[in-house]
């Protein structure tokens, strides 16, 4: 009797209801385990309670709390809403933002158990990952992002006032179409500092305004031509070709863009770059968060802070999240990053604590080291999906999931070849291939700007190297090239090279004259 009442005192909450003090208690309990027992290192947390409609809002603007205005976000909202209203899809339980403080959105509809799960998952799992993973450290600026987005939003709305919504929308449409090719893939420059970025622009603008003198317009420009002729060689080098960051190239070199258009390209590019690490760490990020929430929830239950019933409710959601349908299941749609990530994290824990002989052969560095959290923290900090899979996908997990590899060569008449299965001969091949599937350098089409005909008609030349002879989808390509040509203001030619390095397809786009004269001239 006595023990059970004491037990009750320890409970964080009873039933499904929660209020703000409950959230505080939940957070503190999770924090105790996350920092004290798991040794996580996180940004300060900010938890925001929102309604389902606000969740839809956040969804449709790629999860960011403040974002510039664009019709496509309205489209996504309508799309998500339609699905949600018809009950075809649930809303995500949470959205978490890589910022400092780290903002997690909680939906008011969630039960207390779900709020605990979300706090453990987002406010500690994702938060730790954001703060410690090298890609995020290198490419994102958690302190500056919200201020930068605020700046971007007001900058773009000022542009709309000055230059008209249509012109801004056209520029944004074009920039969005090229967004996936607006990132620097390799670290070559100094760390991003978005606050500096904003200051830099303000200073430049102030300077321009200070030195503005209308008389300069009337100065004859005859000499300039000569000078540009002399500079031609120099400029070709300065263009920095070849260049795979198309937006960057346009921002710096497109001849007829207005300064405000360059700034919009820059904003879109920064946003793309900000999300770039997330694309490369889906499995790891979700796996980390899932592993963290699972351990925190287990510990809460062990400590008697979570009742059996609520723990059972948690297990049910958890099982749904990490469910992996097999390839012949109707629900199958590729690997579930939550499932694969979580399974690999648990597998690593097993290897560290109770290794088999096979594990010792495959993972001599970590097998039997005895401190799973230290090993995992190290992995979370230093890998991305591609390297993570290629290093830590174990034979035992491949067997458990019964993985196999299909090789589909259209030239082969017999059909699709089963080129590897989960056996001694197949482990390495499967692991290599799966790791490649997570390498966005390999999955995204490799497109580069290779030349500009500066002396002639200023035509921009791009090349796509089709790995395995898989060419670009033409319908979309046409539209994207049109956008590209509009920004560049001259013709654009894209060549596709097959695996033998010979040009097999050519696509040309001409700038739309109207935009050339009115918007971009």
């Amino acid at each position, binding site marked *: 009797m006595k023990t059970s009442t004491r037990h009750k005192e320890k409970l964080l909450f009873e039933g499904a209801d929660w209020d703000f003090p409950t959230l*505080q208690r939940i*957070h503190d309990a999770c924090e105790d385990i996350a920092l004290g027992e798991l040794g996580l290192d996180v940004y300060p947390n900010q938890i*925001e309670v929102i309604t389902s409609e606000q969740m839809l809002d956040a969804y449709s603007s790629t999860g960011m709390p403040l974002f510039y205005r664009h019709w496509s976000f309205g489209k996504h909202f309508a799309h998500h809403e339609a699905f949600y209203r018809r009950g075809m899809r649930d809303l995500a339980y949470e959205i978490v933002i890589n910022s400092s403080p780290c903002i997690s959105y909680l939906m008011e509809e969630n039960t207390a158990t779900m709020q605990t799960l979300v706090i453990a998952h987002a406010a500690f799992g994702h938060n730790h990952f954001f703060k410690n993973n090298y890609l995020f450290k290198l490419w994102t600026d958690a302190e500056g992002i919200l201020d930068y987005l605020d700046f971007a939003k007001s900058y773009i709305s000022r542009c709309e006032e000055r230059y008209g919504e249509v012109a801004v929308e056209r520029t944004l449409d074009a920039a969005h179409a090229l967004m996936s*090719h607006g990132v620097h893939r390799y670290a070559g420059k100094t760390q991003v500092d978005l606050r500096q970025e904003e200051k830099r622009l303000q200073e430049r603008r102030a300077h321009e305004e200070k030195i503005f003198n209308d008389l300069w317009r009337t100065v004859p420009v005859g000499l300039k031509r000569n000078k540009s002729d002399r500079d031609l060689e120099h400029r070709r080098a300065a263009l920095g070709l070849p260049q795979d960051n198309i937006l960057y190239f346009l921002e710096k070199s497109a001849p007829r863009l207005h300064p405000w258009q360059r700034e919009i390209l820059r904003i879109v590019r920064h946003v793309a770059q900000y999300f770039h690490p997330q694309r490369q760490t889906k499995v790891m990020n979700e796996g980390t968060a899932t592993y963290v929430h699972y351990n925190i929830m287990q510990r809460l239950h062990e400590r008697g802070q979570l009742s059996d019933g609520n723990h059972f409710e948690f297990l049910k959601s958890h099982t749904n999240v990490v469910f992996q349908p097999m390839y012949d299941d109707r629900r199958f749609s590729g*690997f579930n990053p939550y499932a694969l990530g979580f399974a690999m994290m648990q597998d690593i824990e097993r290897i560290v604590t109770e290794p088999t002989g096979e594990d010792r052969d495959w993972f001599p560095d970590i097998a039997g080291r005895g401190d799973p959290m230290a090993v995992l923290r190290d992995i979370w900090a230093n890998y991305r999906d591609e390297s993570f899979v290629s290093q830590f996908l174990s034979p035992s997990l491949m067997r458990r999931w019964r993985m196999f590899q299909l090789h589909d060569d259209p030239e082969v008449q017999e059909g699709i070849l089963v080129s590897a299965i989960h056996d001694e001969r197949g482990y390495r091949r499967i692991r290599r291939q799966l790791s490649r599937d997570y390498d966005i350098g390999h999955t995204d089409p490799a497109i580069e700007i290779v030349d500009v005909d500066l002396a002639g008609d200023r035509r921009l030349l791009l090349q796509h190297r089709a790995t395995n002879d898989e060419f670009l989808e033409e319908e*979309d390509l046409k539209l994207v090239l049109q956008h590209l040509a509009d920004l560049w203001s001259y013709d654009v030619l894209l060549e596709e090279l097959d695996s033998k390095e010979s040009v097999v397809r050519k696509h040309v786009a001409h700038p739309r004259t109207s935009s050339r004269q009115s918007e971009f001239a």
Partner: protein
Amino acid sequence: MHIIDRRLNPRGKSLENRQRFLRRAKDAVEQAVKRSLQNRSIRDVLDGGEVTLPIGGMAEPGLHRGGGGIQDRILPGNQKFVEGDFIKRPPASGGGRSSEAGEGDGEDGFRFVLTREEFLNIFLEDLELPDLAKRRLSETEEVTPQRAGFSVSGSPSNIAVGRTTRLAMMRRLALHRPKVEEIEALQKQIDECDNAEERLVLEDRLRTLTLKSKRIPYIDPLDVRYRRFENTPKPVVKAVMFCLMDVSGSMSEHMKDLAKRFYLLLYLFLSQRYEKVEIVFIRHTEKAEEVDEETFFYSPATGGTLVSSALAVMRSIVAARFDPTEWNIYAAQASDGDNSYSDGALTGQLLQQEILPACQYFAYIEVGEEDGDSSMSRSPLWTLYQEIRSAALPLAMRKVCRRNEIFPVFHDLFQKKAAKAGATP
């Protein structure tokens, strides 16, 4: 740690985005509607309550691979394969690929659903009825009062006597108002009564009853009901559409189908613009008759061709039922262009002097065989009408051979700016 309650933040943060999206979508929908009607059969528009449209102009393109080439994939759940097995390709090649690509682009099914009304509004948006003079004149709609139940207030002339007395009686019964007979009987009793004591009792009762009957009036203001009238606007604008069709032997099924499509479009169009549209079907061979829709389109008939007969029937119907000062009269005539040589003069005269002055618009559609040429040789009727035609007359003529030409021709005839110039081919 901070906990912030954002639930009371202004809602609809994405409202602006949604509005922008709708603005953009509207253009796309308009284009899609126009395009869709080129191929859609008109029946569908008439029958279908909803029209569903995929949105093409709303795409957000991006550079991605289109499938094909050599593909390698890792899948979970192998139960039966060993290395070196071959699996037959699914009939649609790259089926496995599509499920993989499905991850990012779940928006193929993004559709707009328009009701028939919305669809028609968009569809007919930039069309205009030619010569709306009459309509403009009579745009002040006539208002007629219509009975609409009862009300507790109103003018004395509108008292609903039956309803009022019924309510009064209900009240009287409910409150036990003494009946007149009852009082009269009591009075009589008093008059006949000898005993003084009894008489006092009776008089007392009488007093009570009279008092009560005074307190509970026979008709209380509460009972009074008035007839209520609502003013219903009655459209004075009336339109009638005459469909004239040659059903002689030379008209093939294909030609009739073309004609029918044109009539349907015209009807749709008119019914968008007018409250009520009457339709009169007149078919003719060498003699004309007014028929119902079923007979008009589907009942076979053969014979020669006398166009004047149809015009004559139309004239008499107009005279009998559709006074041109009150009605907007539209006529559409479809024919393969044949007419008896001897009939030409009469037809011309009828059309020019009787029919056209009465009409808002007279459209002549010359239909041809599917493999025919739009610029086919001049038919007797075409030649005749062309002679009559002048800028001042509301006569338009077109040649149509293929189904998909119907809408463009229709669109042409009723284009907003072309209202006056409708007579040029």
